[in-house]
């Protein structure tokens, strides 16, 4: 029994659960949890983009909502104003968010630490106020709704569209799954190692010949891509875009999800996001002021488990394995 095996088993269980969720969830709880589960998957991508920057490169971004919002607006403006069909609009959403990340990243990653956190907030606020005041294009505070175009149409009558909830669920699962797979591949690649080197010690990284600025910029654009994918999916899921999703509170929430889940772990963001969204869904009916509990949980996690639930899990698994291995070793080791 090794920690890696247990973790692989955990990932397998999560994937299986995700695949059968549309049938399994209505048996256990109410069927509206399928919708909430797909919402969790979408939001977890936003937390994952924070995690990529903070957990792997060491840059704490408080402005990921900007790219989320750009993704949302890309899709909504594409469909409602430019008359795009499904795939071009989806691509346009991801493109606008990623392009925004590339442009702002050129400036933002010149700074690190506190200054980086603050300039990302400033950038997201600038575009938040722009989206608020540019009402003809963005709809301002009211948002910009649109009607869902079909994904594929065969002949006259047969259409594949996200209006079918099963198709919508699996579309989201495939996109989110692809994104996480891509992230896992990148993190194992030399680029992923370079990310972690920069996080550990940027001076040494530059001394061994890594271009720290370029690596940070790459990570920023990757994170922007993930956030804009998340925003595009959320626009398709909710069929509208709104400036309120670009506010820095949304970014802050994503940071909280990532840190509670555990930064620097691949699946930490999913855990953190799910936990807090479940809490919201379960408690908001029972107790109007459930946010008090959310705030308290955030503070308690930061104080007692600074590595988040992911870090806690790894600690427990390692201890368990050590304990089990020692028990089995004892009989064979004559010295003990």
């Amino acid at each position: 029994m090794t920690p890696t095996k247990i973790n692989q088993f955990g990932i397998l269980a999560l994937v299986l659960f995700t695949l059968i969720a549309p049938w399994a969830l209505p048996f256990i709880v109410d069927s509206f949890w399928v919708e909430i589960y797909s919402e969790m998957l979408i939001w977890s991508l936003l937390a994952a983009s924070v995690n990529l920057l903070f957990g792997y490169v060491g840059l704490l971004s408080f402005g990921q909502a900007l790219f989320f919002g750009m993704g949302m607006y890309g899709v909504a403006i594409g469909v409602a104003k430019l008359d795009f069909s499904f795939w071009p609009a989806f691509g346009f959403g991801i493109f606008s968010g990623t392009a925004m990340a590339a442009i702002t990243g050129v400036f933002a990653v010149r700074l690190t630490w506190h200054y980086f956190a603050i300039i990302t907030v400033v950038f997201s606020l600038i575009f938040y106020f722009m989206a608020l005041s540019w009402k003809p294009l963005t709809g301002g505070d009211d948002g910009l709704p649109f009607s869902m175009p079909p994904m594929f149409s065969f002949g006259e009558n047969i259409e594949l569209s996200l209006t079918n909830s099963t198709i919508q669920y699996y579309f989201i699962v495939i996109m989110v799954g692809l994104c996480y797979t891509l992230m896992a591949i990148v993190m194992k690649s030399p680029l992923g190692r370079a990310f972690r080197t920069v996080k550990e010690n940027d001076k040494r990284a530059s001394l061994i010949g890594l271009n720290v600025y370029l690596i940070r910029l790459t990570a920023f654009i990757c994170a922007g891509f993930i956030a804009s994918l998340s925003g595009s999916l959320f626009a398709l899921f909710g069929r509208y875009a709104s400036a309120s999703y670009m506010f820095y509170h949304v970014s802050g929430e994503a940071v909280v999800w990532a840190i509670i889940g555990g930064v620097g772990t691949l699946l930490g963001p999913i855990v953190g996001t799910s936990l807090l969204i479940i809490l919201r869904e379960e408690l908001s009916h029972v107790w109007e002021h459930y946010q008090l509990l959310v705030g308290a949980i955030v503070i308690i996690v930061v104080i007692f488990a600074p590595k988040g639930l992911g870090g806690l899990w790894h600690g427990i698994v390692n201890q368990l394995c050590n304990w089990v291995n020692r028990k089995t070793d004892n009989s064979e080791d004559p010295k003990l």
Partner: protein
Amino acid sequence: MDLVIALGMNGIVWGLIIALIALGLSVIFGLLDIINIAHGDFFMVGTVLAWLVVQTTGNYWLAFFIVPIIGFGLGALIEFLVIQPIKNAAALSIVATFGLSIILQESVRATYGAAPTRLVPPIDGTILLFGLEYEIYRLFAAAVSISAIVLFFGFLHRTKLGTWMRAVRFDPEMATAMGIPSRTIYLVTFALGFAMAALGGVVAAPITTVDFQAGVDILPFCFMAVIIGGLGNLEGTVAAAVMLAFFEGVMASFFDPTIARIGSLCLMSIVLLIRPHGIFAGTTR
């Protein structure tokens, strides 16, 4: 032209109030190395406490004395419960204070309610100034802010506790070795930061509205003042706050307020990129 003068004046008054609040933020950052996301909510708690004092006693003047004292107590409590345990992990301070901000906002919403209200200023009437009728209360608010700021700098430079605070900020280990109780100094500093934000809330309550989300709007502005003035540079913070608010006030007389806000945000990103240590870097310590 009248509009430009009026909005410019409003900008200066508002800038002085912001300076008072941002000074608290700057002190907390400079000494404890904590980025306090909840600072806007400290201000908001101040406005709500002012409302509470007026509701219970009917006397607004009392709020100017009681609220900062309550703020000091709350600040000390928060420092003890939340800030002290995360002292060694500065990255997490942003997250912990974000949680704090959620708690403060939600507890105000639970007790005070979600509907914004207006407070009647304790001084009525207007005065003729530069050819236009100007509210006396705003001038009074500016005077209170200036005296609080002057008092604070006097405290920092002329008293034993203030000297200790500067010493701990300069070199915490050496200060502790010299017998300065740095633990207490951290507590007092954080509490003082809360008290200043709360006083800012009392002063500003009749000018703005009392609302549980008031802190969310004011926080970016305070951060702008702190950054442009230079992180931890207290005099710079005050100057930057007044300049920024004046700039925004004058901009707002020509354009839409949102455009004015975008303008000052752009100004701030330029400052951050060109002079990340603030426009006054190098002039002081």
